[in-house]
């Protein structure tokens, strides 16, 4: 491990807010600071909604922060950052250019003479293991090979810092592991033309495997929740105790939010609470997925580590944690440290027949989910048990952006329909109370 050198990039108090239609600012990032020095790999870890990609784009100079500053080598950015190259999740290759042309494009932009450009492109292609594919078009390549082109393109311009936006998450598990390994090998070797790397990821193991330092972001809005040094020598073995301990720690940090949410629900038992949906946003999860998770958890004896669960299901954090959130929110499971434990209700839900489990789901949802409770109560308060969706959308827009408000209502409708609490007519945008009031027992 090298000692960190001079500062390359510095972000201070970066805040980014988007404006809702009624003029309210919705923060995505809240006062995030970061310093990237020569000789280090920093991982920015967070769940979806933590604004980690937004933060990376602020650093790349692609968007401007609402408040706070980003400097490159002391210079304030006012446009694309001149000292960085970026690797994209979707590769971002031009499909009409060959591998070689794609790699040369960045150098062409920097006005590198043709002969030199050619030589450097060949070197980068060789370095990243693409020789033989120079004249292929991206369409002819597999995902892994395409991302290699992305790396070659980024490295060919000898950037000061390499920014990576979830570079391996569009690849299958084996390919991703392979590329990650090669990246580590290159970084440890001597002809890696980059002085520092900043990687954005939602994969905890990836962060622990690659980074010297992990910044964990919380969600809605993104804030730095923890900064963890990774004092492990490379190459790192994911089965060594230090590695596993660190992964468990991060899982614990990432699920912490849900405890807070649970408290928010628990603090207002039964009685009608103040409707504040943004305090407990609904995770984007289907009832079917939820019952699948609980069945597996029940089969595993009712308690298992989150990391192991994710591993068994080959889930990434973004796949697993929303399910966990939903289970906790409904009181079907509880998080203890880095473990998930099923509750009695959860066991009942997982083992009951379809009608009984739907009824239980409906009951729990109308008791424990503020938005669904608000919908059910609202519908009951009207004479004919009908309300327009616009009413709830307006309520939600106080705490969410337009798209997010729509998404939240869609999830609530999906859950409510599954629990047979209410029906929804998409044509007219009407919500109608379920026909059988016995099922809607609060």
């Amino acid at each position, binding site marked *: 491990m090298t000692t960190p050198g001079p500062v390359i990039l510095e972000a201070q108090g970066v805040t980014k807010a988007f404006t809702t239609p009624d003029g309210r600012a919705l923060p995505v990032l809240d006062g995030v600071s970061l310093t990237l020095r020569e000789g280090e790999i920093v991982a920015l870890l967070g769940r979806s909604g933590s604004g980690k990609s937004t933060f990376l784009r602020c650093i790349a100079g692609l968007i401007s922060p609402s408040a706070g500053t980003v400097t490159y080598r002391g210079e304030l950015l006012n446009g694309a950052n001149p000292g960085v190259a*970026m690797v994209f999740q979707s590769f971002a290759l031009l499909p009409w250019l060959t591998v070689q042309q794609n790699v040369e494009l960045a150098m062409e932009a920097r006005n590198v003479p043709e002969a030199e450009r050619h030589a450097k492109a060949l070197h980068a292609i060789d370095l990243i293991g693409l020789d033989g594919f120079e004249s292929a078009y991206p369409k002819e390549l597999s995902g892994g090979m395409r991302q290699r082109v992305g790396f070659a393109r980024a490295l060919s311009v000898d950037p000061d810092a390499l920014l990576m936006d979830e570079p391996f998450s569009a690849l299958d598990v084996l390919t991703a592991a392979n590329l990650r390994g090669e990246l580590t090998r290159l970084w440890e070797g001597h002809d890696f033309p980059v002085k520092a790397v900043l990687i954005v990821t939602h994969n905890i193991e990836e962060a622990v495997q690659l980074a010297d330092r992990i910044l964990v972001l919380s969600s809605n809005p993104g804030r730095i929740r923890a900064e963890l040094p990774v004092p492990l020598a490379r190459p790192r073995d994911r089965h060594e105790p230090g590695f596993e301990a660190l992964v468990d720690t991060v899982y614990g940090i990432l699920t912490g939010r849900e405890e807070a949410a649970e408290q928010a629900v628990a603090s207002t038992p039964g009685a009608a609470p103040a409707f504040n949906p943004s305090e407990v946003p609904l995770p984007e999860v289907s009832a079917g997925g939820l019952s699948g998770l609980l069945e597996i958890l029940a089969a595993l004896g009712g308690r298992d580590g989150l990391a192991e669960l994710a591993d068994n299901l080959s889930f990434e954090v973004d796949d697993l944690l929303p399910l966990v959130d939903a289970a906790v929110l409904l009181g079907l499971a509880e998080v203890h440290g880095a473990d998930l434990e099923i509750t009695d209700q959860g066991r009942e839900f997982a083992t009951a027949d379809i009608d009984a489990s739907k009824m239980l789901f409906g009951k729990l949802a109308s008791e424990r989910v503020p938005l669904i409770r608000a919908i059910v109560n609202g519908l009951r308060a009207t004479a004919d048990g009908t309300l327009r969706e616009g009413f709830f959308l307006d309520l939600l827009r106080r705490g969410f952006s337009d798209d997010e408000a729509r998404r939240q209502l869609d999830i609530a409708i999906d859950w409510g329909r599954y629990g047979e609490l209410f029906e929804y007519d998409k044509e007219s945008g009407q919500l109608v109370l379920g026909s059988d009031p016995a099922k809607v027992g609060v």
Partner: protein
Amino acid sequence: MAGTFPSRGVWRRPGLRPVDVIVFAALLALLYGLLRLAPALNAPFLPKTAPSTVSTDPADLPYYAVRSLLRMFIGLILSVLFTFVYATAAARLRRAEKVLIPLLDILQSVPVLGFLTVTVTAFINLFPGSELGLECASIFAIFTSMAWNMTFAFYHSLISQPRDLDEAARIMRLTKWQRFWKLDVPSGMIPLVWNGMMSFGGAWFFLAASESISVLNHTYALPGIGSYVAAAIAQSSLSKVGIAIGVEIVLVIAVNVVFWRPMVAWAEKFRFEESEAAERPRSLVLDLLRRSSVPDLVSRPLRPVGRALDRVTRPFGLAEHPLQRPVVRARTGDVFFAGAVFAVVVYGAWRALDYVHVSIGLGAFGPAFVDGAATFGRVVVLLIVASVIWVPVGVWIGMNPRVSRLAQPVVQVLASFPANFLFPFAAAFFIATHISLNFGGILLMALGSQWYILFNVIAGASAIPSDLREAMQLMGVRGWLRWKDFILPAIFAAYVTGGITAAGGAWNASIVAEVVNYGHHHLTATGLGAYIAAAARVGDFPKVLVGVAVMSVYVVGLNRLLWRRLYHLAETRYSL
């Protein structure tokens, strides 16, 4: 999207809004501005030397065909250049977009043929005493029938560019020039080529109408296949018209085989992965070209030129915009810009109304609207009858892959074929059977526009997933139920696209379809098209202005009130 217009985003904008009042005012101002380009009405501005007819010797036809083709391609090149400049400005300049896009919307709805007289006189004025003015006017008519569609398609591809590619281009620090040629043009190539091909087909109609034209009681003719037909009609020679039709069919097919088909196949290279076409368009001509040494021979001498251009355009800077702008200055700029645009529009509209008021009186709008209602009725009947006939036929063709492979090119040729070549046959028929043009006009308008419905329905029907068809078959869904719950909803989006295009085409065609001459017979129908055509023939510019403005109001109103709603419905409810 096999075969449908890939520029659907055009219709995604919302319905009638208060700002449309401004838009209509701008329309009036624009029309008036065009009128002012024309010279003073009483000035002897027309060269008496220009021929009023061309020879009808079939031996001259090949030469005429080449001249016509040349006009078409010059029009296409101009349209592409216009598209690049206009669409890029609209997509990249924040303030310009606010003006350019509504303006494009208006231009698209103005019946081009109605303004032919005005543009002819304007261009003759630009090149006094020379045929070049007529030539320019004809090319301009072709240009106006192609450019708007292509511009909209390219603009839409620019603003819907994949975000990651935009970011990659910025972070690679491409210059403006590099970005345009490496990213903007390639990513817009497919919509550009498809819309170019469609518009080119439609432009034959305008070519035929613009080569031979009567202005101020004087007829002018340019050497071309359109004037040949006009001359043959004047001689009541159906056999010569027939020969011209044969040559035209050969032209349309040849241009398709030698130019458009290879272009479409070549443009496939620019397709993004996600939208892989089920069946890749192929072209024998392109395969031959690719195997030859022609591409290398052409590209080698061009490479240094490309390098030089790359160097020369470097000072224009990066394709990047500053992240921070002084807010106050930007706001002030916005206010001044909006104020200036508003003032120009209001002034122009007021001058236009004043011009009409002092010449023929504002009351002239009344009869024009009444005539418009007659033409509107024709368009409605046309759409209903054409739908009843062509929807079942199109579904049948589209659902039989073997038939549709044969029928697609035929329908494409039919859609490209200038319907005005067929007018004399219909006119002869009407004269012989004493059918009034009031009803016959519907048929004439349909000759050109109905194919859009057929074409799109075929595309829609062939795009129905086969597993869905199999499921319906297994469930025994047949008869009326099959049409009501399966086929009609499945082709609805494609049908709406066809209907919009067909209606637009019909309005435009009414200007030549409501007044038909055949030999010494003159047939006239009551309608807005006849109103405009009559005003144009005698050079009554205020009436032309009124007629064109009223027709635009009908077209825009119909688009906003009916078609866009149907389109929205198709997109949200019936998209497969």
